[in-house]
């Protein structure tokens, strides 16, 4: 079981923990955090794959993913503030106006 194999497993695990956070948590901020976690997990496996194939593009990709993650969380939080202003509480179940 060499290092790379472990990291790959870790990244898959982290990705799905992030997913569970997103799906289970009632609070929007935590949902956003869950997304951050999932992105981070992807970075891990990205880096390991590029390392394995002696390439640098992998790390480059990671860099970009980080930038995007930052942008995404910024916008996410500003939306959250608006959400809070409208609904008064940051629970996901409040936002069901689109109910069928």
């Amino acid at each position: 079981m060499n290092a790379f194999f472990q990291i790959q497993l870790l990244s898959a695990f982290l990705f799905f923990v992030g997913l569970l956070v997103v799906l289970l948590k009632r609070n929007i901020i935590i949902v956003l955090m869950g997304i951050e976690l999932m992105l981070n997990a992807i970075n891990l496996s990205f880096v390991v794959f590029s390392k394995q194939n002696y390439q640098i593009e992998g790390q480059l990709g990671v860099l970009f993913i980080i930038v995007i993650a930052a942008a995404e969380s910024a916008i996410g939080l500003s939306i959250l503030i608006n959400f809070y202003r409208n609904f008064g509480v940051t629970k996901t179940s409040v936002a069901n106006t689109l109910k069928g």
Partner: protein
Amino acid sequence: MVNLISNTSTSIITALCILTVIFALLMLFAKTAINSALGLLAVLLCSAAIYAVIGEHFVATIQILVYAGAIMVLFIFSIMLLNLTEEEKEQEKKQEKKFFTPHLIVLLIGPLAAMFAFILVAFSLEYFSPYVSRYSYKGVYTKEHIMQIGGNTFAMAQELFATHYILFELISIFLLIAMIAAVVLAKRKID
């Protein structure tokens, strides 16, 4: 599959992996927002450590700087701003019965995770290489080449500013747009 990392570092990596797993579960089962935020912070730091151990020093530093530093700060700031911690508890009681209970979701996600993991691992062990032999392109950046250029950061710099400079410019514009959007969205409507 040649082993690029020495035995000691693999053992460190396994330790770090276990640590990140614990912190991730902490984040999942945290009751309050703050605890899960701290959990995430811890996971980020550990992954930065893993990067460092593997040899990706530049990515590790960026990870700490941007992820842990900027984004987490933002999150904690917004948690504090909206001071959500109290309502969390009494909301818990009147949870109406939902069709998709958490256990069912975990049950559904489980097999997917297993499949996903299997694919990642299979690729890393080059299980599929005979099928995808056409695409596997061994890069030129072996350990010695990096050493010869002068370290990981130099290699990254060369790649980033020489071959993919357009990408670099684009990403900066992207960041600019994101910034403006965030300001516009969060601005309080004065009129």
